[in-house]
């Protein structure tokens, strides 16, 4: 365990923990949009910045990456920190002016509205969908296209993603709900592509995309009859 000071309070945290995690454990709230414990460090949204002082040097760091250290002094609400957060949320509101989770962060920061003209893109490029697909699901069906302001999340060549198993992880992880997914008549539609669902042999309910089940069988070397029934009937 290491001891550090956060907003004037002495707190303890396990070695290797990020400042964000240490803050959360100490009930100190830090807004964030791109960090996810299941995923590798990314540090792109920059909402989670904090000011640290170490050996007389003060700087701004992303708390979702920076690790706790003995004697570190952390200020999670300094003026510089709040300015970065306000700017970031105003910039993101220009891409997505309406999503409740962004509006909530804005409200907490005292930002009433963005001073920047909205150019609605929806996606805030936190990258959680791409990273989940690659790091958790293990398929890399989607990725980034373009760079700078033209960067966006896309399927290869804008076509139906050949590697997608329709698991829907990207849809569920998106903090601003801009990856649509629909199910109707035994078909799941995601990334503008129809994926048939598997029907349970026993109850007749559609329970998971056929491709996803195939992927699991392949991954774990399971027999072909595995997953012929839904979890209830198994």
């Amino acid at each position, binding site marked *: 365990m290491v001891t550090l000071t956060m907003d004037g309070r002495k707190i303890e945290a396990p070695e290797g923990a990020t400042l964000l995690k240490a803050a959360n454990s100490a009930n100190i709230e830090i807004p964030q949009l791109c960090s996810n414990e299941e995923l590798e460090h990314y540090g792109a*949204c920059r909402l989670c910045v904090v000011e640290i002082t170490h050996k007389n040097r003060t700087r701004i760091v992303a708390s979702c990456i920076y690790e706790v250290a003995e004697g570190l002094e952390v200020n999670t609400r300094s003026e510089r920190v709040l300015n970065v957060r306000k*700017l970031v949320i105003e910039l993101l509101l220009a891409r997505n002016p309406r999503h409740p989770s962004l509006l909530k962060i804005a409200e907490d920061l005292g930002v009433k509205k963005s001073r920047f003209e909205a150019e609605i893109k929806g996606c805030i490029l936190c990258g959680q969908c791409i990273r989940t697909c690659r790091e958790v699901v293990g398929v890399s069906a989607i990725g980034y296209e373009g760079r700078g302001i033209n960067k966006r999340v896309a399927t290869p060549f804008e076509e139906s993603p050949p590697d997608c198993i329709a698991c829907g992880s990207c849809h569920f992880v998106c903090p601003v709900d801009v990856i649509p997914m629909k199910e109707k008549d035994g078909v799941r539609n995601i990334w503008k592509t129809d994926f048939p669902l598997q029907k349970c042999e026993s109850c007749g309910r559609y329970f998971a995309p056929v491709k996803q089940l195939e992927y699991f069988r392949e991954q774990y070397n399971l027999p072909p009859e595995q997953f012929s029934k839904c979890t209830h009937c198994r």
Partner: protein
Amino acid sequence: MKKIKTLEELEQFRKEIQAQRDPKKTVISICAGTGCLALGSKKIAGAIKEEIQSQGLSLKVELSAIKETGCPGFCERGPIVVIYPEGTCYLGVTVEDVPEIVSKTIANNEIIERLVYKDPDTKERVVKDSEIPFYKKQQRYLLGKNNFIDSKSIEDYIRLGGYSALAKALSAMKPDEVIQEVIDADLRGRGGGGFPAGWKWHSTRNAEGDPKYVICNADEGDPGAFMDRALLEGNPHSVLEGMIIGAYAIGSRDGYIYVRNEYPLAVTNATLALDQAREFGLLGENILGSGFGFDIKIMRGGGAFVCGESSALFASLEGRSGEPRAKYIHATDKGLWDKPTSLNNVETWANVPLIINKGAKWYNGIGTEGSKGTKIFSLVGKISNTGLVEVPMGITLREIIYDIGGGVPGGKKFKAVQTGGPSGGCIPAKHLDTPVDFDELTKLGSMMGSGGMIVMDENNCMVDVANYFLKFLEEESCGKCTPCREGILQMRKILDLITSGEGKEEDLDTLEWMGQAIIDGSLCALGGSAPNPVITTMRYFRDEYEAHIRDKKCPAGVCKALIKFSIDPENCTGCHLCARICPVEAATGEKKEIHTIDDDICIKCRACYEVCKFDAIKIM
């Protein structure tokens, strides 16, 4: 060539090739740097070789004494041909000049007056290259050899003492002593950050992890900068020698040179140099019989400005997309493939042999308290002598711009100099006497960067200039983090409004606030410095911003929405040139009568303004 296996063999070889060349014999250096090549220097070199043959001078000038060299820096006046031992320097040479050069100067030591340098002010003629004002105040420890080395010849490099620093390090110094020497020399990185190279090596050497990597950053992405290119193209062995010494000091066996994709000649020359060094036993196993082994691979860059940033460069070398990674662990602990890595700039590496040969004490005698040695700048923009200049740290901006650069051409007034590349800052005239070093430039809100220097005159609008750099950075932002990707875009949009006359009073406060938050909040140093051009121009040229916003005027007469072209009847002679050049027939009038410009039609292309010989076109 058989491998050189010992120190003694290297010195023996050096003596042999030195003996082959009588220092009194003629050597002709033709610049084959990228600038002069574009102006036809290859043809000139060929013509000189032919002429020497046909005029029967082959005995006087051997083929190997006709050298196609790297860039000597004075690109403004290329193609450049220098004839040694006299050092007769001919500028702006063409193929047509060649027969005369050979028959007069080479055969009879006669000077061709029209090809020598003439001072634009005093009209004084200067024959010797080292006497030309452009070179006189320079101290060319790194670039100077470019004139004497055929960039494709390892023998030339060895003849001039090349690889003696490596021999010294391997035979007489322990790795720690090499590092100490570089620490004592106070060599700071030339790629932008100015981090002490010796300490970087020290950390890499002492870091846990194996293998350790040594990398040369030759991505040089700053628009208008070409110092690394001139070194790697013109004198590649000096960079290799520095890297081999560094690898020995750090304990690395694997090196990389990461070269900007748009530098094919640098790739060719460096690749050739690597092959030669391997053949001579200066790379590979058991270098000079020391037991130390090291080799270098060349990798071509990912083609984006941001690929020069260290974590993006590693990603690119690892085969991933060149995007910076946020981490708070030094590359010296976890760099390329998460192994201890020393990444240094081309120019940083090229300084190393110098330090080992001449010693830290000699080296840190040059420069200022906090910045030692020389720095190469690429001097461009509104300046008489465009080119590369190598100067001791601590020289003033005024000396660089006026004494070396020859000042602002066309009798225009100097306004600012932008240092540090696209995200550097603009420094106004009142700070021209600032000594140039890492810390002084930072104090002025600018930075050393990699050594770009863009001079601006009264015809540059500083709001427009800031907007220009911001646009560059907006396009080069990788798009990963919010402040850089979205923040630069929004700052640029505000500047667009200001330059088109739609700026609001509160914009200045917004820009200032955003600038600081982008610097504080960005993931890498691209965003972390991108607002600098805006912040410094607002600091030093606030009146220009205010004129755009309050008076809807562009004082420099640049921003199209805010200017009007008209003809001054006092000066107009009715020469009709303006009417002829105007692409939209806005300028009209009968010959020999006073002309007029119709503002409703005028597209503000400036063509009439540039073409008028009588100063009759006024911008308001």
